[in-house]
């Protein structure tokens, strides 16, 4: 049972890690805490719900279109809300992204309604036996997909020119612009990429819990906690931190109390920041 919960935790954690990755990318590049990151997940969840469940499109098509539209949303958000406030003080950035979050979640409410939607499990939610361990295929698929994504991201950031340019912008915006890099375009692309990652997370999340307009806040908070655990600003740290949160959340929900699992995650964050204000691992 423990293994099953742990694997489920890793899958969930992978999703949190994905959200945290997107969130960290934006932080590194634009020095903005994107409170709307969770909404990217929420929107793609609703999109694929509409395309696949309500309109009956084939899953791969619905998947692709949802992801692309999420990326587009990211680009729009960056252009309209983030770029105009570039360089502003933390409070301004916080209120702005909160504004985006409020807009998106409430828009979702009047387009799709306030009640949660169940999303059918595409990857199989019936437990299967592996020796004397019971596993759910869905979780394995999630872990698999995310692993592939991580490899793709790694290749992108380290082997392609665009990826390297993005890393340059994330490390030092001023110098990058002095080198002739179009910082505006790169940041826009980073937002698009983050939104795509959020979109993917939302699609993977949909069958596990549900699709609803208000899941964004809890997601982004947990992504933040994960990012802090792994060392705020570190990409691998964000992923690892997300997994840690997923696992501990699942295990504490199962072994301690399901009502308080959120409280436990939040309390963990507060505890970490109090004792190690720079996060658990001293990364840049």
């Amino acid at each position, binding site marked *: 049972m423990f293994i099953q919960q742990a694997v489920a935790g890793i899958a969930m954690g992978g999703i949190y890690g994905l959200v945290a990755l997107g969130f960290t990318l934006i932080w590194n590049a634009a020095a903005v805490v994107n409170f709307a990151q969770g909404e990217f997940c929420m929107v793609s969840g609703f999109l694929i719900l509409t395309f696949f469940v309500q309109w009956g499109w084939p899953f791969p098509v619905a998947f692709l279109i949802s992801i692309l539209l999420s990326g587009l949303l990211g680009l729009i958000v960056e252009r309209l809300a983030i770029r105009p406030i570039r360089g502003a003080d933390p409070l301004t950035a916080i209120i702005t992204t909160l504004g985006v979050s409020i807009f998106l979640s409430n828009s979702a409410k009047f387009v799709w309604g306030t009640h949660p939607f169940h999303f059918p499990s595409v990857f199989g939610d019936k437990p299967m036996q592996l020796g004397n361990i019971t596993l759910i295929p869905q979780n394995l698929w999630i872990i698999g997909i995310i692993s592939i994504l991580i490899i793709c991201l790694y290749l992108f950031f380290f082997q392609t020119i665009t990826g390297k340019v993005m890393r340059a912008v994330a490390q030092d915006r001023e110098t990058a612009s002095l080198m002739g890099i179009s910082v505006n375009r790169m940041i826009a692309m980073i937002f698009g990429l983050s939104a795509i990652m959020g979109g993917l997370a939302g699609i993977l999340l949909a069958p596990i819990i549900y699709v609803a307009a208000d899941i964004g806040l809890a997601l982004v908070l947990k992504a933040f906690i994960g990012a802090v655990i792994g060392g705020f600003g570190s990409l691998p740290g964000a992923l690892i931190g997300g997994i840690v949160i997923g696992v501990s959340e699942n295990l504490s929900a199962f072994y301690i109390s399901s009502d308080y699992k959120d*409280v436990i995650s939040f309390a963990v964050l*507060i505890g970490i920041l109090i004792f190690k204000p720079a996060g658990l691992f001293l990364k840049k």
Partner: protein
Amino acid sequence: MKKAINFVILLLVFSLPLWLPHYPLHLACMVGIFVILSVSLNILVGFAGQISLGHAAFFAVGAYTSTLLAVKFGIPFWLGIFAAGFVSLAFGILLGVPTLRVRDIYLSVVTICFGLIVQLALVNLESITGGARGIYGIPRPSILGFSFSTPQSYYYLILLFALFSIFSSLRILRSRYGRAFLSIRENELAAETVGIRTTYYKILAFAISSFYAGLAGSLYAHYITYINPDAFTFGTSIDVLVMIVIGGLGNTWGAVIGAIVISLLPEYLRFMQQYYRAVFGIGLIFMMVFMRTGIISTLEKIPWARSSATRMGS
């Protein structure tokens, strides 16, 4: 001229219950409560520069403290409200002490989590708080036989506390405390270097702001006579933060104006009921892009609207 305007405004404010119809008077009462909330948050965020997104937690603690004392122990309102203030103050210190070394973004997220924890506790500790159903039958306060059972009379009660909070805020700002808070906001290291005990002042800022929020909570509970966790959400915290930013961060009267605007906005925008909150989100973005420094400093640019209230230090 300025004095004449001030006098007219004062007259209006004091005479509202005499001529305002029932529903708008109710709104005025709610505005008054939010004035206390925004002025109190302004002390923490605007003066001391500590980004706090969990103010609803202190509002809630005050409301529930006063409610439980009245409903379960029969403690009269006048004791209950001050108990509410002090219990909230304790919670404020509870948040302020551990977060002394936490800054900016991290602090904002910690305060969000704090607010959510309090709300979750309110929902889950059913035996104490009545859970999601809340608590009914909170008595209206009475003094020497006179009961504040009408909105008209309650309005004056709220007005009293609102004026008290505004007055305190203005006094604090003009004193060594205000200067100390502002110096921490501007440059914490420099403040430390000139001898400002930043630890003490930061905790004090949390304490003062949560005390007043607790008072507001008590006033709210005894006015509506019914509370449940839905009144104390993250959305509430955001609303209060927006109130102080829209008016002009750091400015007491700005907080008042912001409270009035944000409280009344949903009423004026009744026709877009469903869409209101989404439009609110857009409004936030718009405000940050175009009017970041708030209403009052935008007014500063209009000569005739300038007053002593607009000056930074007042």
